[in-house]
Structure formats: C-alpha cells, structure tokens
C-alpha cells in the first residue's frame, strides 16, 4: 500500500529530480534554442510541483507565463540576435564561490525553518486562517486566492498591473512598434534574393 503522503513525496522527488536535471542541462548547453526550450520545460515541471503543493492558480499562471509567453519572447529574441552561446573565456571560480556562499547561507537559514507541511508553523497559524475564515463571509468568492488577490491585498495587485504596464511602456520606448520596419526589411531581403537569382540566371 502506498499512503497518499508517500505518493506525494515520490511525486515531489521525481519532479525535483527532473527539475535539477533540467537546470544542470541548461548550465551545460550552449545551443540557445535548446536552452530556451529547456527553460520552458523547467517552467512546466515547476507548474507540476505547484499543483502538488496545492497552488493551482500559481501553476496555471506559471504554465501560461513561463512555458508560454516567456518562451515565445525568448525565441523571438533569439531570432533577432543569436542562436549559439559562445564559450566564455573567464574562469568560473568567483561565480561559483558566490553561489556556494549564498547557498550555504540559505541552507543555514533553513535549519530553523518549521518542517515542511507542518500545520502549526507560524505561517499557518497567523493571518492565513483569517483569510480562510473570512473570505466566504466577507466576499462570497469561493476561490480564496482570488479574494485575497483582488480584495484583501488588492493594492498589491494594482501594483502588479502597474508593473506589467511599466514593462510595456519600457519595451515600447526601447523597441517602438513600427511595423513598417519589418515590412521594409522583408521587401529589401526579397529584392536581394531576386537579384541573386537574377545573377545566377
């Protein structure tokens, strides 16, 4: 018999294993197309992990953003820039050291964390029960995440919307969106190809 707990642990462990493998593969690979695709895979895997951790909204969003939009933008950027990473001549000693020190600090910090999944952790006993108890009474919205997102902490979400707005302003300021640009370029390329064909003939 496999208890639900054990099953959850096995699923977690599998997902984590794949995540780590994907991450290491991304470190190693220099073909950017593969890197971007693996990054998408990483997002999907993490979405799976989020589902197993009860965060369905987050999983949904991560899948849509990390595996969807993010990948599309990365591929688009690749098309505009390069598709192969060049070998870096620099030694990796310092970055490695930085990461090891940071990682060690984080591990040190985890030691006093309440155990994973424990129901009496401060996180579960302060504030959160209030949300769960008050949401049905005060908002009538069954999805507590939505209630907290749009009402209790609606101001954060306004900030989030503003962040997205900031991003588009920034991108438009940097790139503009003059579609004539592209048409012109395509026409130019076509003309060039025609000329080459003409030369061959």
């Amino acid at each position, binding site marked *: 018999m496999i208890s639900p707990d054990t099953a959850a642990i096995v699923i977690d462990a599998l997902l984590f294993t794949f995540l780590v493998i994907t991450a290491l593969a991304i470190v190693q690979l220099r073909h950017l197309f593969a890197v971007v695709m693996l990054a998408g895979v990483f997002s999907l895997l993490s979405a799976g992990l989020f589902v197993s951790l009860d965060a369905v909204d987050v999983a949904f969003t991560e899948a849509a953003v990390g595996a969807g939009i993010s990948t599309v933008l990365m591929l688009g950027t690749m098309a505009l820039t390069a598709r192969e990473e060049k070998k870096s001549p620099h030694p990796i000693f310092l970055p490695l050291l930085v990461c090891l020190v940071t990682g060690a600090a984080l591990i040190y910090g985890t030691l006093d964390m309440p155990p994973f999944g424990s129901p009496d952790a401060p996180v579960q006993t302060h504030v959160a029960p209030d949300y769960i108890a008050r949401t049905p009474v005060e908002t009538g919205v069954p999805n507590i995440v939505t209630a907290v997102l749009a009402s209790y902490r609606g101001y954060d979400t306004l900030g989030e919307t503003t962040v997205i707005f*900031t991003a588009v302003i920034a991108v438009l300021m940097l790139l503009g969106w003059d579609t004539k640009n592209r048409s012109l370029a395509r026409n130019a390329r076509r003309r060039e190809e025609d000329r080459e064909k003409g030369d061959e003939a």
Partner: protein
Amino acid sequence: MSNLPALQIILPLMAAPICAMVGRPKFAWGLATLVAWASFAISILLFLSVRDGTVISYDMGGWAPPLGIEYRVDVLNAFVLMIVSGMTSFVMPYALKSVASELHESQHAYFYTAFLLCMTGLMGVAITGDAFNVFVFLEISSLSTYALVAMGAARDKRALTAAFNYLIMGTIGATFFVIGLGMMYMVTGTLNMADLAQKIAANGDSRTLRMGFSFVLVGIGLKLAMFPLHLWLPNAYSYAPSAVTTFLASTATKVAIYVMARFMFSIFGFDYDFQANTMQFIMLPLALVAMFAASTVAIFQEDLKRMLAYSSVAQVGYMLLGMSFLTQLGLTATVVHMFNHALIKGGLFMAAGCFIYAVNSSRIDDLKGLGRIMPWTSAAFVLGGLGLIGVPMTAGFISKWYLMQAAFELDWWPIALLIVASSLLAVIYVWRMVEVLYLRDLPEKNDVRAVPLTMLVPMWGLLLLSVYFGVSADITVSAASRAANALIGASNIFWQSGG
C-alpha cells in the same frame, strides 16, 4: 484630508496611463509636471500633519492590517516622500528641454510615463507599511528606471549595457529581498511591518531570521549601491539621460536607504544583536572603505557624470556610516545627509546635464574653459562642488557636522578624522573640475549651445536651497532628529501610536 496618503501614490499612478493613452509629448510633460507639483504639495501636507510625532495609518481597501495592506506615515516616511516628490518637481521643468535634446521625439510621451511610474514606485516604497508591497513598488520603480537609463542610448550606446547590467544586479537584489522576506514570513506568518516587528520581538532570534535579515540587507544593499555591490551604478548614472541621472541620484538611493533603515530599526529593532554586530563589524568598515575607495576612483575619472556617480557611491558610504553608529545622532546625520545630498547631487547632475546640452559631451576634456562662456552653469557647479566637499554655509557642511558629532559622541575620533580625510578627496575631484572650467583656455573651434532658462532655473533653485539649508539648518535637522527618534523608539513609539 483623510485620503491624502492614498492620493500621494494614486495621483502619479493614474497619471501615467493617461499620459500613455494620450501619447502627446507636450501633454505628457505638462501632466507629469502638474502631478509632480501636486504630489509635492500633498507630501508637505502629510509632513506637517505627522511632524508632531503622530503616525497616520491608512488601510487599503478598508481591510485592517495584517489582513490588508496599510500605509504608515511617520516623520521619516513623510520626509522621504518630500524628498522624492520635491526633487521630481524640480526635475520636471528641467527635463523639458533636456529630454528634447537627448531623446527622439517618438519616445517623449513614454518617457514621461515611465518617469511618473518611477516616481510612483519610489514613493510607494516609502509610504507603505507592508513588507511585500515594498517589493512590488520597488519593482515598478526599478523596471521604469532600467528603461529610463537605457534611453541614454541616443547619446551613447553604452547606456544599453549599463541598463542591462543594472537590470541583472537589480533583479538579483530584488530576488534576494524576496528570499529574505520569505524567511521572515516563515518565522512570523505576517507581512505587515508593524506586525513583523512585534512577532520578531516576541519570537526571538533564530537562524532563519538571521538569514532573512542578511538577505534583505544584501538585496537592498544592491539597490542602494552599498560599496562592493555598487558596480552597476557608475555606468547607469553616466550614460542615462541627464534628467534621469539627476532624478535617480537624488531619490532612488535615498529611498533604498530609507527601506534599509526601516527594516533594520523599525522591524528588527535596536535590541537585535545579530543586526548590531553586522552593522558594526561589516557595515561600518564597508562604509569607510566606500568613502575612500569611491572618492579615490572619482578623482581619476575622465567623464564628469561618471566622476559624480562615484562620488555618489562615496556619499552613500556617509549615510551608511551614520546608520552603523546605531545612535540617535548617527541616524540624524544619515537622514540629514539624505536630504542635503539629494539637493547637492541633484544640482550637480543638472549642471552636468547643462554641459551636455551645451557641448554634447560630459568628458572633462571637452569642458575646458567653459567657465567664461557658461558662467551660470559653471558657477552652479562650483557651488554644488563646495557643498559636496562640505564647506561651511552649504548643506554638505551640516551633514558632515552631524556625522562627526556622532563619531565624537562615541569617542570614535579616529573615525571622525577619517570622515574629514575623505572629504579631502572630494576637494581634489571638485577642484580638478574648477581648474578645467576656469583656468583652461576654450578650444578655438567650439560649438556651444546656449542653455535654456528652464534648465538653469531648477538647477539654481536646488543649489540655492542647498545653501539655504546650509545656512539655516534648523528645519532639516529638527525633522531629521524627529525621524531618528521615530526609528530609535521604533518598536514602541512608531508602532503603538499608529492606528
């Protein structure tokens, strides 16, 4: 009246999409200017109403904290809000011609939109009483900052890489901040600052809390260019458009300093030993090194804006030094210097912008002999430079005075000597510019554009204010002193009298 705290943020936040929607440069500029002035007025009203030590708490959406997000305004916040909105009010008129000369016209409307967003973000960080909300608004300001910095690419393409590096460093910093926040949340279960403070005081120390503190410290340290984490700053400041540099130099680092002070003193409190040790054994030496190393590097710069940027890193060192004294006087010095340095550096970067406007270069070699044909800008630069050195009757002197007082109070007079010694380095780099401006001959072939009044007046306004606050420091010092008191008595005064 009761909605003032919300209006402070919402006004620029709503003005930004309107600017983008209309999409006309002149309109965007006009609206941004109006909003900046209105914000300034609001921040002054806010400051006046909290000056006596009251704390305004404003519940967003009517949800009481810790369930909802609250604004909490005390003297310190209000002071920082005043710096940010006040500086924006000065920068906006300046930006009109400066931006027109440095950016392509199709970008102007977006530029002012981003500018408003940046201001919103910075003020949002300063006003909020919720730790996670700090992150959200920090990102609003950061994202818009990256884009604004990159806009310098029209003059020098290095602005792009500067912005990119800033983005990488800034995002790593923000992520560190989120990690630290997560750890704090993990041991307390709350995100509200006041609640955090109480829970931390009640639960006591733990390894998770220590690392939470450290990651928050490093995260904000990256944002405020704390010494070894400052590498993004010089390029970002050098290549950004002049108006942006002015704005960033006089507000962004100040807000980051504020956040650091808030977390250290209001949330972790003075009794937290791990913090006190970190301050005295890590922060204090780093601050001293920053003062000397960055000033020394500034001396050898060939570009005026870059020189000023390194000087900013050094000045951040002064502020951190004041904080790491862990005394009322030290904090007063930090807060006073936040304000004074905003004025002085703002004025100096404006002067640099005027030079760029006039000769399209900020290389020190290209500024030879400009003292004679640009008397106003050059004189303004000298005035600002004197403030940077800390010559009496300028605001910089007041800062230095309090910082040294704080050192003497602790009987750390070697540190007092180091403070003055480091300002000698400022003498060198400021004087180098004076020599170039006044004692070199103008090149035969010169093409100097007259600087418009809309740029000169804000610059002089700031510098005259810096002189005014150097001559009559009562207002600033008493405000700073109250702010320091608010931080010192953080766990009792700040948190309990609100509501």
